[in-house]
Structures are given as C-alpha cells and as structure tokens.
C-alpha cells in the first residue's frame, strides 16, 4: 500500500472493504504525520490518539461484520466508515474540548455530541481531533486563535486563511483526508482557497448547527473540506439533513447521488456541456491580486472550452454586503456570546465577590481583541435608537442581496463562478493591525451567507506559488449540481501540471528546527514593537 495519507477518502473506502487496509492502519498513519508536523503547522488544537484508535477498531469490526454479511451490507456502509476526519474546535464532542479558539472556553468539556458529531459516529468515521480556528470563528487568517496561529503548508510564513484555517491546513498537509469547518462569512471557502483544497459552505439549513459553538446564528453553516470534490461530497452527505434539535435545519432530502460523483474524468467533464455559468462583474474588484484574476479567467475559459456557456452578470448590491454583514454578524454574536459569563463553565474570575464585576473580569480576560471589537459593534448596532438605522437597514440590504442572486437563477443560470478570495495567502501579521483590510478579504464570500446560498471553493492553480480558489455559487439546495461542476472542473484539469504539486513547504514541517507559527508570530511582534510599539492590538 502506498502512503495512506496520500489517499482520498473514497480510495480508503475501497481498501477497507477489500481488506487491503484497516482503519487502524489508516488512522495510525494520519495520527503519526499530524503529531509530527503539528509543531510547525499548529493546525490541531487537540489530537486524541487513544479515542481515534478506539473508533478505528470499532470501524474495523463494523467493516468485518459487513464483509461477513455479504456485498449488500458492505455497500450499505458509509464511504467514510473507518476514515479519519478532523473537526474544527467548535464542534461539540462528548467529553472533549470545544475551545472555539478562545481562552474563555479553556477547560470546558462538552457533555454532549453535536449533531454533526453524532452523524459522523453513525457513519463510522474516525474523529482524530480538533483543529485550530480564529476565536469564535471571527477572523480570516486563524491569527485570532487564542492558541496561536496556524501556518500555511504552501508557505509557512503565511496564513492558511480563516477562520477554519486549522481544518484547511490539516487537509492540505495530508493529516486527514477530510475535515469539518464552519462558514459564517467565508470561513470554509477562503481558507480552502488559500490552502489549495476543496471547501464547501452548504445552503443555510442543510447541516444542523446543534452543538456547534455559535458565532452568528442566521449566517453560520457547517461544511466539508476535502482534497477533491468526491471526498467533500461524501463528508457533506454524512452530516447533512434535517435535525429536530435545530429548528432552522430544513426538511430537504439529502441526495444519495452525492456518493456517486463520476470517477472517470471524461464522464465528469461531460457535465459542463451546455451548463450556463454567470460571471458577476462586481466580484472582480479593484485591488484584487492580478494573479488571482488571471487564474479565475483561465478556469472559466477552460470550462467554456469544455462546453459551458459563460455570460457576465451584475449583482448590483454586492458593494453593500460587507457593511450589512458587519452589522448583522456582530449583532447576533454580541447576543450569542453573552452566555460566556463565567457562571456555569469555562474560564471564571470570582475574585471580586460581586457578580457583575466577576462577569466583566471573566470576559475581559477570556475574550481576545477581535471578539471584543465585534461584541461592541454588535451591542451598539442593537441599542435603542440605533436598531432601525443599523440592524433593520442591514436586514433590508440582505433582502436586496438575496434578490440579486434570485434574478440570476430566474435568468436560467446553473451556477455563478467568481474568485473565492481577492488575494492569495498573505504573510502572518500582515493585516492584524488593520481590521478593515482583514474584513475585505471576505468581500466575495460573505454575500452568500447573507443570502443563505451554497458556495464552494475549488483549487484553480497557483499564483506566485500560492493556491488560488475558484468560487462556485449555486441556487439553494443545489449542492449536488455544484459538486458535479467541481468534479467536472477536476476532470478537465486533471492533467494540468499544478494538480500534481504538493504544498511547497510541507517538507519543512518534518524538520524540528522549523519555527512554529507561534514563534514566528512572537518574532513579528518583537520586530514591530522595535519599530515603534505597534504590538498592542486594539
């Protein structure tokens, strides 16, 4: 057997069923590389070897039993049975940590499984551990993690994107074939783009949010990372569907065809024939990397050559998306984060002897600067006298943005293609002093969250050695079509030279002398402090 970490999940599934590999073997191999490289990448906040191996043994037993029962039983097993998977550290796993990248949840152990976790267990997936993230998923670089940033395997001095940077980096670095992330404004797609992996934010309501530490309830969605469309589809299939415990989850059937994306590149490519793709002019913004623009136009041209019909469209309210988002998301966050009060769980400071003072101290010590900024923004936006001017107006903008997209679907387009991020992975620390510059990285992704639409980022080559992501936007509940499109694009670019490349600096992560991202950040902070004390972020 070749290096198990280089296998796709569907390849592992075949080997597990034929008995050529065991889940224990696969899990061991992934644990070994994750443990070895995590110092240099900081992609994982927790790797639970013991629990993972125990789950692997259970999966091996299930597979063995199915094999004894015959082909039908084997076929009924989920393709992820026995396959290692990582979870962003805001997914509750019974008895395990769920820090959400925050100090305030240090020491908290969830007494229950998130629905996503329960469904993964049902499928037989092996949960390896928890991945790094921006605190409470607020950020676009994973630098806002209270546990240090994650490095990008393509360039260890650069960010992996965020907030699900740990999951994206772990998949890019072959620590796990698939990982779970969450996306509130681009937090799956943007790190997927920057790490060169597939990442999908499903339609709002597709995946239950129960047990996922909330950032902004009306925008949060859970979705998969994988190294190709088929793996992402398998993970989406495992976790999707209506859940009685999440009233906003939709009773929309999960298509079984998600597990039957074509294996043949030519068969997959045929999907593009006659497909109508819209190219929104507002998503090719001033200030975007020319390399990014070039890759996206090339990708679209390649699809056109394969038979797709591409037309430019306008999504006229796009420019208001960012402003509306930074009202709605912080408003909901300010309320969602009120429960972190030091009374029942997590960090607490009870030294003052008076509970209001204790509350303020706990939150003062437990939340990082970006979280505090958004809690203040949101509190302000919801305050009496400002509610109509901010929150209500933002909700109106949200409706307009949604109607922009509706018009595209009404015009008969099958999908919208756009850049995922206007920029490639930027250096650690580059945008930390400038929150607005950081927010702008999500300009092309957050309109979908406002509209509740599914979106995915698929690798579309490199610009200056760094991955560029093509964003595919679909109509509500069209994930299957989007994944077919993504699979088709994989088919027509299967022989492109960049497809064969592994992350350029992955080898360095095996070297124990390579600085960790935390050390890199400390050096940066020291340098900028020397240059004029800008180390204090506010």
């Amino acid at each position, binding site marked *: 057997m070749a290096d198990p970490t280089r296998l796709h999940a569907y390849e592992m599934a075949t080997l597990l069923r034929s008995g050529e590999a065991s889940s224990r073997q696969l899990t061991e191999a992934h644990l070994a590389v994750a443990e070895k490289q995590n110092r240099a990448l900081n992609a994982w906040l927790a790797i639970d070897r013991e629990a993972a191996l125990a789950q692997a043994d259970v999966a091996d037993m299930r597979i063995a039993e199915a094999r004894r029962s015959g082909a039908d039983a084997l076929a009924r097993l989920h393709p992820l049975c026995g396959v290692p998977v990582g979870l962003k550290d805001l997914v*509750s796993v019974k008895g395990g940590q769920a820090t959400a990248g925050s100090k305030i949840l240090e020491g908290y152990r969830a007494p*229950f499984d998130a629905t996503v976790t329960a469904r993964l267990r049902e499928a037989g997936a092996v949960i390896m551990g928890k991945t790094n993230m921006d605190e409470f998923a607020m950020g676009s670089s994973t630098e806002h993690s209270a546990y240090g940033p994650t490095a990008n395997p393509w360039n260890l001095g650069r960010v992996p994107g965020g907030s699900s940077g740990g999951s994206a980096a772990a998949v890019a670095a072959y620590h796990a074939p698939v990982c779970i992330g969450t996306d509130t404004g681009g937090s799956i797609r943007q790190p997927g783009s920057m790490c060169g992996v597939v990442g999908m934010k499903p339609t709002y309501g597709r995946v239950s949010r*129960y047990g996922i530490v*909330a950032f902004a309830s009306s925008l949060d969605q859970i979705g998969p990372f994988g190294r190709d469309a088929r793996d992402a589809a398998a993970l989406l299939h495992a976790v999707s569907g209506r859940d009685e415990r999440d009233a*906003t989850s939709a009773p929309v059937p999960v298509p079984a065809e998600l597990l039957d994306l074509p294996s043949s590149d030519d068969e997959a490519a045929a999907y593009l024939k006659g497909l109508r793709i819209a190219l929104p002019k507002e998503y090719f913004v001033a200030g975007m990397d020319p390399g990014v623009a070039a890759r996206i136009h090339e990708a679209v041209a390649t699809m056109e050559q394969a038979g797709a019909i591409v037309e430019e469209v306008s999504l006229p309210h796009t420019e208001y998306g960012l402003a509306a988002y930074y009202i709605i998301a912080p408003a909901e966050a300010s309320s969602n984060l*009120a429960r972190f009060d030091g009374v029942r769980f997590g960090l607490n400071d009870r030294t003052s002897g008076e509970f209001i003072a204790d509350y303020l101290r706990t939150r003062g010590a437990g939340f990082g600067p970006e979280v505090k900024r958004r809690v203040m923004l949101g509190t302000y936006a919801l305050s009496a006298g400002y509610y109509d001017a901010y929150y209500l107006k933002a909700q109106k903008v949200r409706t307009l943005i949604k109607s922009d997209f509706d018009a595209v679907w009404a015009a008969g387009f099958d999908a919208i293609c756009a850049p995922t991020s206007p920029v490639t992975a930027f250096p650690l620390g580059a945008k930390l002093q400038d929150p607005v510059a950081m927010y702008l990285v999500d300009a092309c992704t957050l309109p979908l969250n406002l509209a509740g639409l599914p979106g995915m980022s698929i690798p579309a080559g490199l610009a200056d050695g760094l991955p560029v992501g093509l964003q595919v936007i679909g109509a509500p509940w069209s994930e299957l079509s989007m994944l077919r499109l993504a699979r088709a694009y994989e088919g027509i670019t299967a022989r492109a030279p960049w497809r064969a490349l592994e992350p350029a600096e992955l080898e360095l992560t095996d070297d124990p002398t390579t600085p960790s991202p935390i050390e890199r950040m400390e050096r940066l902070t020291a340098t900028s402090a020397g240059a004029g004390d800008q180390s204090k972020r506010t």
Partner: protein
Amino acid sequence: MTTAPAEAAKGALARYEAVIGIEIHCQLKTASKMFCGCSTDIDGAAPNSHTCPVCLGLPGTLPTINKSAVEWVIAAGFAIEAQTPPATRWDRKNYFYPDIPKGYQISQYQLPLAANGRLTFDTSAGPVTVRIRRAHLEEDTGRLIHQEMAGRRASLIDFNRSGMPLMEIVTEPDIRTAEQARRYAEELRLLMRTIGASDAEMENGQMRVEANVSIRPIGREAFGTRVEVKNMNSMKAVERAIGFEIERQAELIDGGDKVRMETRGWDEPSQSTYHMRPKEEENDYRYFPEPDLPPLMTTPEWLAEIATRIPELPSVRRARYTGEFGLSSYDANVLVNDASATALFEGALAVGAGVSPKLLANWVTGEYLRLAKGDAGGGSVDPVELAALARLVADGAISGTNAKEVLAEHYASAAPVASIVEARGFRQISDSGALGKAINDALAANPAAVADYRAGKAAAVGFLVGQVMKATRGQANAAMVQTALRERLEAAE
C-alpha cells in the same frame, strides 16, 4: 372600557384617581419545558436535577419550540378575545444576570401570540372591563439562592426553573382601584384554570402578579409617575399592596414631595411596600428577532382546531346558570369561581335527571363547599352520588338533616350514598301505618302539649313533631308527621 359606577370614594381616591396596569406571568401546564425536553415536574426536585445542555445554555445548544405551550397561549388569546397574528416570531431580550443562562431570554416583543384582548369581571360596584394589550410566550429564569457558605456570602443557582414556559399577560392602564386589580387577577386566574393552561397557584409562583401604579388628581389627563409593585403572593396581597401604594403616593404628593420612579416590594408582615431598586430609565434590552427559531405560522385551521378545545368560559357559564337554571348571580359566581364546585355541579346535572338544577346548586354551594373548605378537606364528592342523594331528598326518601350527614360521610370515605343510608338506617319512614304508632306514643306521653294545642297554641304541634322525630331517630317524614298530628289533634276534639 366600561367603568363601574364610582365606588365609595374613601381615602386618597376622594382626591386622586389611580391608574393601574397589571402584568401577570403564568406558568403553563406542559409536560416539558419551553425550548427543551426537560420535565416541568420540578416541585420539590433536587436543585439542577431537571436540566439539560439546552436549558443550561451550554455552547452550541439551540431551542426548539414546545407546541403545546404555544397552543395554551393561543387558547388564552381566544379566552380574552384577543387576536393572533398569522405569523408570530421570537425575540431575544438581552441582559446579564447569573440566573439567565444564555445571557438573553427568548420572548416575544413585536408580534405577541395574542394582542388586543379584554376581560370583564364583577366588582362590588358592578362589572368592569379591562383592555389587555398582549399575551405572549417566554421562558422562565433559574433561581438564585443567597446564603452563607463557609463564612462567605454565596449565591447558588438552581436552573430547574430555567426554560419553564411562561405566559405574560399585560393590561392597558385601565384599572382604577385596588379591588378592581384583585378582581382582574382572580378572574384571569379562573380563566387560566378553566381552559387548563395553568394551575395558577400564586403561593408557589405559578402565577406572579406585578402592578404599575400611579395616581393623578381627579380630572387630570396626564399620568403621574408610576411605581412598579412586586412580591404580592396572594390575591389579598394584590389588593392591599396596591391600596397601600395609592395612599403612600397620595401622602407624598399632599406633603409636597414627588413620587419616585422605582420598583417596590410588598412586605406581608408590615403590610407595606418597601423600596427594592430605582427605575430611573428603561433598561435597553437590545431586542432583536431570535435567529435560532423560524417565524411561527398560525394557520386558520390550527387556530380553529385549538378553539374547539376551549371549554365553556366562566362568563358564558355564569350567564347560563342564571338564565337557564334561574340561579341567583351570587350562587352562579360561587359555582363558577371554584373549579371543583363547577365540576361537581356539572357532573351531577349530567346524571341527575329529575332533580332540579337549583336543588343541586344548593347542595354544591352549601354543604359541599362547607366540607371542602372545612378542616376535613381532602375528600371528594362523586357527582353520581350527589345526584343520587339529591334525588332521595327530593323523593322524601330521607330527611334533609340525615342527607347532610350522608354527604359528610361520603365526602370523607367515598362510600356510596346508598350503602351509607342503608348502614345508618336513614331511610325515611313515610308509611302512615309505621308512623301511626310513634304518633300515638307522642300524643299519649305529652298531654300538656296536646292541651296547649287544643287551647289554641298552634305552635305546640312543632314540639310534638320533634318528639316523633326523636323517637324515630330522624327517620320519620317530618311533613307527613305534621299533617298526621294535625289531623289527629283536630279529629279527637
């Protein structure tokens, strides 16, 4: 609204008019909590034994709506003649307190489940109608317990109550007297119990009454400064606390002082209100629509289905009792205001063919309620047995005196009326042959009374009837005895 004729203006109300609005929270009678599956059977339960990740507000948890709680509020809405909008939604009321685990309470702000209702009730000065602004659904908080622990002041939290379903009912400031306030609360309590939405026991917090009280000189339009009054744990306390507050405010104004905007509590031992906290400005609760719950659609079919489940309301029932049965409005009130009395009366009516409603009503309002409210409480009367007993009395089969004893025994032992009558030998002697001997004996043994009667003292017959009753241990049909005695006394002259 209609206002009762001016009550005897006494005290402050001779010079000032009180303006009172009432907010009532009722714990709804559901099997599980408002947004999770925890049991609502929390009375006497160990602290925090009825909790789950949802009602503890743990990270990642989400609320799901308790349909039955929603239906109770819609039913209450029907009962107060309110309107339910086609779509309602949930809002978050944001504030920090250690007993509110999420840092916000899920409530209804802009679109309550019921709006613009009203309630009519009787007062000593006649009927009064109060407009009800809204009735909405929300979740209860946990309970803080302050105590010394290891020499330190400590606050303990019991989250059993967290997430219990509450209905909040808010009136317009239409109430003018303390009596009206109490009567409003009593009538609402009766309504809740009648439709089954809540047990509404004030003593254990199932019903909490808060009043906003202000006064203004009679004839003035503008409102005075209002004071919120809490901690009224009985209906009597509601009336006394509001009455006290009206007098207190009048004294302040008369003395040249100003009424302070504040929250005051009712102190039962001193029969007065005390300052709890200032209320200089409205809290900013930063209400916004609850993003974890989709809007709730109330289809006409659903509303119609709920309407069919609403029993006869107290006002309709009173009208039926006075109109159809000819009961006095006093008796109708007594019957309707007590759920067990209503049930007994209705039950006995259903089986008691041939017994007049008035007779049954007398038994229920008289003997039954005397027993139920007496020391012997805890028993019950089977409506079938009450009907049987009333029929025995109506048929003259047992005496009224004995019937009362039978009812008391049935109330305590639940034994069937027939067997009690049998065992105690209460069956009335209405046979003239059997009565004849007792009458003869009485006449023979009491010549003086016989002489008195014949001398014109007609009342002497009463004494003789008593003698016969005594001799027959109350079993004789008194009316027959009297008739027979008269016949004998006059015939032998």
